[in-house]
């Protein structure tokens, strides 16, 4: 028998390719439709504790009761909770390759009408004057004008509102 220890270990490449069908369900479907057709963000409410559920959901994590069919419009403008200049972009799970980014900043937005802790979301931030960026400043969305799909990508990016 050849007892030579190989100095180069073999690796076997494999690419996972799957296609998922993500249903939006009645609550997110309403959100997506409002976004697509009316450029509006909507949230629903817990009938017991009255908190806003954003993104809209079937039940309240605090009470575990079914959400009321009671809708409120929130945002789409909001407060800049956090921002970060993007260094290395991540991998886009849809392609397995480096994601193309539409802006050089990422941010976290607290939409108008939603209390802290009741929902916020991540998005891109298009910045003209980085030195003027500060947490707590107002941000407004720039929407895609055509071929909106009903996802948050219908908003191209947010822009800071300088005072």
């Amino acid at each position, binding site marked *: 028998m050849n007892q030579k220890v190989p100095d180069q270990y073999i690796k076997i490449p494999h690419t996972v390719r799957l296609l998922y069908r993500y249903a*939006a369900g009645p609550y997110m479907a309403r959100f997506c439709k409002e976004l697509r057709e009316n450029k509006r963000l909507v949230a629903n409410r817990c009938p017991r504790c009255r908190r806003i559920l954003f993104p809209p959901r079937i039940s309240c994590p605090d009470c575990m009761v079914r959400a009321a069919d009671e809708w409120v419009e929130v945002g789409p403008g909001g407060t800049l909770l956090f921002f970060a200049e993007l260094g290395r972009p991540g*991998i886009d799970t849809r392609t397995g390759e480096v994601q193309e980014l539409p802006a050089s900043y990422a941010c976290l937005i607290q939409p108008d009408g939603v209390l802290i802790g009741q929902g916020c979301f991540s998005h891109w931030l298009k910045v003209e004057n980085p030195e003027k960026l500060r947490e707590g400043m107002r941000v407004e969305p720039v929407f895609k004008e055509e071929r909106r799909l009903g996802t948050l990508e219908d908003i191209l990016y947010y822009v800071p509102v300088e005072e």
Partner: protein
Amino acid sequence: MAKRAAIVGVGQTYHKSRRPDVTQVELINEAVKAALDDAQLTIKDIECVLFGNMEECEGSFLTDCWATLGTGAYMKEGCKIYTGGTTGTTAAIAAAQHVASGLFDTVLVAAYEKQDESVYGMEPLGLVPDPLWRRRFRSGAGAASWFARVGTTYMAETGATEEHAAMVRLKADRCACRNPHAHLRLNLTMEAVLKSPFLLYPLRLLYLCPTTSGACALVVASEERAKRMAQKPVWFKDWVIVHYEIEGFEGFFPEGRITSHEQAANILYSRNGITNVRRDIQMAEIYEPATWAELQFSEWFHFAEKGGMWRMVERGATDIEGEFPINPSGGVTCTNPIGCTAMIRVAEAALQIRGDAGEHQVTRDVKTAVATGFGGSFWTEMVLLTKSLD
């Protein structure tokens, strides 16, 4: 009623970024064999094998099935437990519960991650965010931004400076250099830490956990069995699991709400008569996913009064020789095979109680230790381990 369960065997691999010399199951087997050897048992003595990992990292489905080639679960009971970052503690807790149920005398629990199997390291974790909500926007604004935010908030609220984070990172490195199993052992200097580039201010690259390939395993036994065994048993005293909704992770805890860490600590301490944390518990192995988080989480676990952790760090209190050692293993910023990171916390805490941690054995006599897990959307798990049954 409920029976007591003890850790009687601890095993882990030498953690590295790449292990081309072994397959996934061979890697798992290294930890399993180490744990069985430590317990002075063979696989024939084991009745049930529990298993956990984060399957996206390896792109494998039902990883427990293939893993049976390495865990020895063939013709034994068992199942797979998976809760993201907390998988390691959840699985350890599951092992304790299997024994405490009275149905099993010996349970083996193993967890692993072989992150060199993914071409882009941790990137398959991009599957974690909700596809209809935040999956597209994770670049730069995911976990890293949260840990940067922890840093800025912590400094603003407590008067700590950037150097305190550097001290924590240096302490982690000092510990890791004394732990042969640790992944990153860098012999850092303060200068080198402060030269590490910012990922996002004030989060330096060095403050984030690495991409690690490694495995960990525990043997858990019943009281009757443990007392007949050669290895010193380490007892599961209690455990607690506390979840928080994902908006907590991205949106921060609002005023008036306590964090999942505080909630877990409050439950655990009050249930076990722990009134003076640093007296009643002698050391901690916590899941600190970034250096800044060690400062913040420690306060949430009441290891220091609010805003006081950086002072403890300043006086070296959390060092191996300190009055309340935290992560003498080097912690998560030095070693992070995701699915088993939390289990390593339990394993290392058990070694400290046994006095078998070798070079990184803390000087304080450890009768009670706490190990924590962190994951999901701000989920916290705590495991309380003790030297004696009382």
